[in-house]
């Protein structure tokens, strides 16, 4: 339910621009931080990244400071992170080295689909 609501906000944003969803951004960030359901978390991250990628990256940085970040993330969340990083690197190659480390961390993941995506991203 919540994950669909978040995607709904995203659809509104895509169709009508930032002004309408302006006040939702903080809300989404809060959901991202406090949410326990991984698919909701994933969608929140995706939406936040597309609306304001600075904040999404900030959140990602705090997550990565945890002791064993990859194990805590859940595979679908990892997949969305990989996708985002890939997009970022393509848009702005100068930041590549910064994101490469995160991608390498992903290669320790237990999930095979993450492993595959990660290796395909590297090459």
């Amino acid at each position, binding site marked *: 339910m919540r994950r669909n609501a978040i995607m709904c906000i995203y659809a509104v944003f895509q169709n009508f621009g930032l002004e309408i969803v302006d006040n939702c951004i903080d809300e989404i960030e809060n959901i991202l931080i406090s949410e326990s359901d991984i698919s909701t978390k994933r969608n929140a991250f995706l939406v936040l990244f597309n609306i304001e990628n600075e904040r999404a990256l900030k959140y990602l940085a705090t997550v990565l400071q945890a002791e064993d970040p990859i194990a805590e993330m859940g595979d679908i969340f990892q997949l969305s992170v990989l996708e985002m990083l*890939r997009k970022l*690197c393509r848009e702005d190659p100068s930041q590549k080295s910064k994101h*490469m480390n995160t991608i390498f961390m992903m*290669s320790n993941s237990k999930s*095979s689909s993450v492993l*595959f995506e990660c*290796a395909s991203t*590297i*090459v």
Partner: protein
Amino acid sequence: MTTAPSAIKVAIQSFLNLLQEQNDNNIKIIVLDKILELRKQYAKLIEDYITDILSLIKDDGSLEINQKVLELTTMLVSPRNIKEVRAFLEREIARACKMEDHGAQATITNEYRYLLIKSINQITQSYPETIPTVLSPLMA
């Protein structure tokens, strides 16, 4: 995205781990295709992992996987790993001779023998010194 050898090695290692862990043939085929694609650019780096690649040919492996592995091996042969490949070919010839060639398995066996001989042919052309080793089991 990057061309750093250490990064590519991480990627190759991940792919090989996947190949060893997964039992689904479809997954194996996709991953092997990825490695085949990588070979075009990073043949030198993949050469180091030839042992892992050779171990992918198994008794119960599907023909398509064996074909891809043989293809990859033929392309990756170099003076550095020719010894290993030679031992592998010798072993495979012996195994192919023992394979069931009657009944339901006949087409698969024949096809595999054909593929094996084809790659032996290619390898011996560039490395004539391997001829004696592969010839004796072939004649047996």
